[in-house]
């Protein structure tokens, strides 16, 4: 499956990846779902238009049950820069039922020296989304998912994952210093190069300071050894508007410390969906 994805996105081998997709499979990307025979044509057509031919600089996979998570860093042959791309597959190892893919669109725009707006304009329309308003407080009902609720209590690193989740769900920023290795590698959306953990502090803080009634929800977790993939989203209010920002985070946990955190989200698709949002915009004077 890994080779099929790499060959599709580096060489344009559409047929091989297509042969592994069920007729009923969908490809979710840029906050839209694509079904039918045209889905891969469209995804790969847009990809090569922006990157040209490219190679894979680094890859990582995490496999658990029917979850297969592939993280690839691409390097275009004729352009400077790299692009982070995560594919979350539902597969029975033979066929793919669904793909949720997040590509770092800010990195894509930087690669082409295009304005983000130009890349954003070329993204497909997002699916209609209604986020019904809700009470984001738990009210002592234990209704909110923590990693330890979704994975076996005996699983490795359960407590660390709960503490990591507290950074986002309870705004417990102090956990960044206690959980992350001093020289942990932090890859965040839109960043051209890996950062130190202080950058994560700023990234979380910027969301806390922009949004009210912030709420985070875990969708799925996949664990293989010391590698963990978490599919999750962040909801919040910006004035009268409610926003939703989907993420995939990949963690490497070594000796009870997080040594690598790669968090991806599709900033330009988000800005297209929530055009009045300031989550990823610098405030203007």
């Amino acid at each position, binding site marked *: 499956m890994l080779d099929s994805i790499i060959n599709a996105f580096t060489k344009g081998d559409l047929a091989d990846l297509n042969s592994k997709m*069920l*007729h*009923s499979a*969908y490809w979710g990307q840029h906050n839209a*779902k694509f*079904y*039918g025979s045209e889905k891969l044509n469209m995804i790969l057509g847009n990809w090569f238009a922006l990157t040209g031919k490219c190679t894979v600089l680094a890859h990582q996979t995490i496999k658990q049950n029917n979850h297969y998570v592939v993280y690839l860093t691409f390097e275009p042959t004729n352009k400077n820069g790299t692009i982070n791309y995560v594919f979350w597959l539902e597969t*029975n190892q033979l*066929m793919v*039922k669904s793909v949720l893919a997040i590509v770092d669109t800010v990195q894509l725009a930087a690669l082409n020296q295009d304005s983000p707006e130009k890349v954003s304009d070329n993204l497909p*329309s997002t*699916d*209609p*989304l*209604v*986020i*019904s*308003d*809700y*009470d*984001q407080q*738990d009210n002592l*009902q*234990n*209704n*909110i*998912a923590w990693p330890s*609720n*979704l994975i076996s209590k005996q699983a490795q690193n359960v407590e660390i994952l709960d503490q990591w989740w507290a950074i986002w769900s309870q705004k417990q920023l102090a956990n960044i210093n206690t959980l992350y290795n001093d020289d942990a590698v932090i890859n965040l959306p839109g960043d051209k190069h890996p950062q130190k953990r202080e950058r994560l502090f700023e990234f979380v803080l910027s969301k806390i300071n922009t949004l009210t009634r912030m*709420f985070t*929800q*875990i*969708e*799925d977790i996949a664990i293989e050894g010391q590698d963990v993939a978490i599919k999750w*989203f962040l*909801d919040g209010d910006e004035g009268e508007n409610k926003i939703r920002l989907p993420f995939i985070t990949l963690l490497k946990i070594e000796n009870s410390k997080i040594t690598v955190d790669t968090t991806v989200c599709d900033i330009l698709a988000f800005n297209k969906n929530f055009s009045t949002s300031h989550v990823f915009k610098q405030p203007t004077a």
Partner: protein
Amino acid sequence: MNHKTVPTNNVMHLPQGEVTQLYWKNLPELLNPSNPKSQLLRGFDDEFIDIVDYIVRITHRIWEQKNVGLCNDYYAEYCPVHTLGAYADAVSSVVTGTLQTISAFPDRSLIGENVIWRDLGPNEGYYSSHRITSIMTNKGPSEFGDATHKTGRVTTIADCICVENKIVYEWLVRDNSFLVKQLGIDVLDASEHFAKIPAHPKFENWRQAEISRVKAQEPSEHQWKAPIDKAAVEFSNRWLDTLFNQKNFGKANTFYHLNAKLQWPGGRQAVGIPGIIGTIIQWLAACPEAQVTCDHVCTVPFDQEKDVIDIAIRWSLTGSFSSKDKRLSMYRGQEFFILGASHLRLVDGKISEEWTVFDEVAAYANLIRDFNRTNHNTGAQ
């Protein structure tokens, strides 16, 4: 759950585990099944191996291969078809409707997501609840307005009673509000356009009778004595009654997993209990006194080793419309009626995924029709 072979009414029911399951099967395999027959299928063509195979292949032949005339073979001459916006009972109407839909959406392809079924007994046939994702481009005038030339996606649930190779009764629900939004049409504009299409008198009779029935909390007349997993029926009734009738949303955690995923009409998406509760509350707020009845339940195993089952529920809801939306405010106090269908996937006894489908466009169109009829009768402007 007992999925072993058990004799009922002197008929040996075959195990459910052998019946076709769509989820991991590719289309060529579904269209050319190689497995032996797994159900009795009395009176059905020999080519079909089970009810799922029958539904999948006739749907493909009629819609994707465009053999619209096959409706004459696979629908009974008299076949009541209920939607929230119309009624038909002649096979010729089914042919006409299919042709008109294909004309407006010529590349419509139907992807079978799931068929949840029930063996109704040797003389009663089968109940099937077919969830479909359709992708289609609007190239001609439709019930929502002029052609938009845009491509959209829609979820449909078709509940059918199939007897001796023919569909003899159907309830059809489609998430039209999600579709029209993708076509660039405002939901209420689509409803106003839809309301101009005259409703069949039998449709109005059926809708009024259903409103009275649901208010009285009476069961649907379509009931069968065929065996069914009592736990699934009990869960379905309790789910609807607790959340929709009693409005006890604090009990949602007894029905849903903490990361349960929900798809509701119009693009309502939620994951997790707070979001799911919010979705139901926000929708019910437009009809706070709503009452619901559970009209039919069927269930099949999805993964017997891991205690995963699929449940299909057909339900009806009515109540006094009380929306605070400005454009809908003139319809306050009118009877609101929904024909709904839900597919639930339960893991270890709780919902991990829910797909609920009803037609908001038709529901609002019915309010508009009632409003216009009342004002026409009273001479009000």
